[in-house]
């Protein structure tokens, strides 16, 4: 028997005392830890069915391995490249046309001199964020309907032919982009406005004294002041390139715009939940999350190379 050196016992005692002193803090944290293990980390473990031929009767562990079969099949599939392309296109459209909108709106809100009116405007532009995509999709589908939508009634009244906007490949991306800006842009100003309030007001005073014009102050002080926030949000959106948001796309999707509207989330849903190919659907999901995660890492690394603060 090896004698336990006394300093180890002392250390152990100290540890035990520490935990007993803080036992209530750990107790408070316990439900959260259990929740994360079950509802966040168990599904990650469930991702291994991408490498298996999953059957509910056999369970995750009991289902036979199939190696990279699912991936080989996926990469050989024509649909996969179309879905990949659609997801990327929608995200890039958002990055280019959506991303600057909340920044511009926040800069403009900041210049509005009438405080009460400014607050009223804020209240109004935040509103769409709180409305479900089902409702927004429902409004859009009906406003754009070829038989009773007001847009087409207007076209007909002007002597034109009604257009089935959501039933064609041509308009889907524009509609998805505009409705996204409409719902999200107002709300996203909040984080920039918060960043703007933390800019030191003395900077503006000094610049004014030095003769800087209003636009110069906006550019060199306000915009420069929120640059770190812009970069963090840009990183996050780059990390999100593979996610288009199931709720919006699915609600605007129908069989005639599928060619451009099928994205990873809706494709996974249909494969898994409609066709019951759970393993293959998981493969698709895993592929898109891994690519998204890698993109985020690369973006974060580049931001750090450029001397900016990253996310991690």
């Amino acid at each position, binding site marked *: 028997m090896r004698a336990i050196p006394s300093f180890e016992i002392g250390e152990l005692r100290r540890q035990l005392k520490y935990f007993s002193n803080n036992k209530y803090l750990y107790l408070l944290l316990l439900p959260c830890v259990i929740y994360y293990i*079950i509802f966040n980390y168990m*599904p990650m473990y469930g991702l291994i069915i991408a490498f298996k031929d999953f059957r509910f009767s056999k369970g995750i562990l009991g289902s036979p391995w199939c190696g990279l079969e699912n991936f080989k099949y996926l990469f050989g599939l024509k649909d996969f490249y179309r879905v990949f392309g659609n997801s990327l296109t929608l995200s890039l459209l958002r990055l280019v046309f959506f991303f600057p909108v909340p920044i511009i709106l926040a800069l403009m809100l900041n210049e*509005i*001199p009438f405080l009460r009116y400014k607050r009223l405007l804020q209240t109004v532009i935040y509103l769409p964020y709180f409305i479900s995509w*089902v409702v927004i999709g429902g409004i859009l589908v009906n406003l754009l309907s070829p038989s*009773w939508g007001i847009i087409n*009634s207007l076209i007909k009244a002007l002597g034109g032919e009604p257009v089935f906007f959501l039933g064609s490949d041509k308009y889907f991306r524009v509609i998805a982009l505009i409705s996204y800006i409409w719902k999200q842009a107002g709300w996203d100003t909040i984080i920039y406005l918060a960043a703007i309030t933390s800019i030191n007001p003395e900077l503006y005073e000094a610049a*004014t004294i030095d003769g800087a014009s209003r636009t110069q102050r906006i550019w060199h002080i306000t915009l420069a002041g929120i640059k770190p926030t812009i970069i963090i949000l840009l990183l996050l959106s780059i990390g999100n390139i593979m996610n288009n948001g199931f709720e919006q796309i699915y609600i605007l999707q*129908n069989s005639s715009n599928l060619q451009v509207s099928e994205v990873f989330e809706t494709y996974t849903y249909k494969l898994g939940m409609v066709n019951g190919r759970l393993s293959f659907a998981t493969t698709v*999901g895993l592929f898109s999350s891994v690519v998204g995660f890698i993109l985020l890492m690369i973006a974060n690394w580049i931001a750090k190379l450029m001397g900016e603060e990253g996310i991690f």
Partner: protein
Amino acid sequence: MRVKNALVRGPGDSFVEVFSTLTVSVFALCCLLPFAYVFFVSFMPYTEYLENPLKVIPSKFDLTAYRQMLGYKLIQSGYQVSVFTTVVGTILSVFLLVISGYPLSKTNLKGHRFFIYMVLFTMFFNGGMIPNYILIRNLGLQNTVWALIIPGCINSFNLILMKNYIKSTVPETLEEAAKIDGANDIRILFSIVTPLLKPAIATMTVFCSVGYWNNYFSAMLYLQDRKLWPLTLVLRELVVENTSAVSPVTQMLTSTHRSHPFTLKMAAIIVTITPILIVYPFMQRYFVKGISLGSVKE
């Protein structure tokens, strides 16, 4: 300072102010118009709509569509499910955010970094749709309202926000004083810390309740039984889906000629968003404060 500013005001200043005010006003108007249109059309009598489909404001407020909509069984059960999940889910979420955010705000607690990374990692990587579905099915939560409440009841983003808020507002001296008086951490949390968290709790209540009320994806994934459908899923079937001729929805929409299907659909939308529109003016003053409380960055 005001005087100095006034002295150097040039024509550029007025231009920037006018231009900004106008542009944001136009954007705000665009945010409101669709709702206003839906609201008016939902009261439009059928004959008036047929006469002129471009008519926006009805000559009288016709409630037929609402009577029909509120008499629809799935709308009634949907309302019950949505109210239940929103109330129970929000209480559970906010409670969990407070009790978990408090220990996470203690930076010198052993294992702090580990717990934070446990939370942060899930913001960037997750199991995704199908593994979640398998989990819910294996837990026996499928086709129960709990499938709408429990998954997602701790949102990592909100948790980090809460943790940052606690760290930045609760003075440590206060807790130390209570500790000397012999109070344990749980008592300190509920009797001393929680009252200081009112603004954060209000913000979280807003975020969680709107999230629960608007969600339709979990319901689509986990609930096959239509009686358990929340309002959003019922609305989707009514308003968006190209329903087949045999479905009960199509039958309801076509069998009665008292309202145009379009008017009915608009009424269904108003019925769904009314609770949010009612509480919105009260809650909006909280979230502006709430979001600026702490950034997501760890």
